[in-house]
């Protein structure tokens, strides 16, 4: 579930962001409480709280006093925009490096991409 190589609270935040981007968590939907989250994933409640606090700071979640935490209405757009900005550097560039290293012509890649149509 969690790996040992980076702070768990960041991994928690990342996981919730992924759920929002994929649509598994809808906007204005309530997320698990930190204690539920801690019990479910067997992690320290303070660590879970830190991950959630980071998401509140980033405007991804908002708090309703006494009720819990919810997904901010524009969170999905916010996250998608952020990921779009780094898409080429994070996803495409490494793919092209790999293609060059193993001798796949860029034209083959373009052809493959086009086979998906223009969605």
């Amino acid at each position, binding site marked *: 579930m969690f790996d040992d*190589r980076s702070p*768990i609270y960041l991994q928690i935040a990342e996981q919730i962001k992924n759920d929002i981007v994929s649509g598994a968590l809808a906007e204005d939907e309530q997320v698990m409480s930190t204690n539920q989250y801690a019990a479910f994933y067997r992690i*320290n409640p*303070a*660590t879970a709280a830190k991950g959630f606090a980071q998401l509140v700071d980033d405007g991804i979640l908002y708090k309703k006093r006494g009720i819990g935490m919810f997904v901010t209405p524009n969170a999905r757009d916010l996250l998608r925009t952020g990921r779009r900005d780094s898409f080429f550097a994070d996803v495409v560039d490494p793919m092209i490096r790999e293609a060059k290293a193993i001798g796949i012509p860029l034209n083959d890649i373009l052809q493959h991409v086009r086979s998906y149509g223009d969605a």
Partner: protein
Amino acid sequence: MTALTVRTENVSVRFAGVPALDRLDLRLAPGKIHGLLGRNGSGKSTLAAALAGFRRPDEGRVLIEGGDLGAAQEPYENAVVTSRVCLIRESGDRPDAVPVKYAVGLAAALRPYWDADLAGDLLDRFEIPLNKKIQKLSRGKKSALGVVVGIASRAPLTIFDESYLGMDVPSRNLFYDMLLADYVEVPRTIVLSTHLVSEVSTMLEEVLILDRGRLVTQSPVDALRGRGASIVGPAAAVDEFTAGFTVLAEERLGGTKSTTVLGDLDPALLAQATAAGLEIGPVGLQDLFVHLTGAKA
């Protein structure tokens, strides 16, 4: 909130002149889950015994304060403190020739925050028969009885000293889940002494690493994750890059070298390393633990 704060001041314990704890100074913040990590023989159990007042330090003091104790007191031969400090060891520290229910009744009588409903629920979940004599229980059930008493005591300072080693994986997982659930309900100061780092690491908030009776490091667990880095590349470039760092381990294969260092790599350093053709990888908590407590530094 009744959680207790623990301090040790210059604590030494010696066995036949050999130090098991060597001038140890530490502080355990109240209400957190602390992992006490170390290899076999590093002094974990001796420290746990000193904290719980099972043993008086040869030098220095153990001080426990806060909660309903108020000012700092030493636990040794102090019933007020020891009733609020629960140390669970694998040995059980209890008579074995009596039925389980007597041991449970004894804990109920001695522990001011005992929760009988919780104890009953836990005994059911761990499937421990109340009327069976303790000596007739399997090793796993004896360990489970220990952790049931440890959790249901709700002691403001609760220490588990490898008390769950005799339990199989499903039982250990049940223990972790039950402990966490009850800790959320009633926050208290908890110490988990173990060398099973990877199994408990997500439950911890703070980590203490002991090696040969001394404190190697004490840190929030998330700060320790990602504190090490492995640098791989041509030997000369690796050596040049790692010159200013604390080196934990080095390995060579032909012209390639892998060096594990302690320390934060900021983006500028990362860029510099990438430019020099070096690969930087994270070091997991378990590996960091192994490096920090290895025979060779």
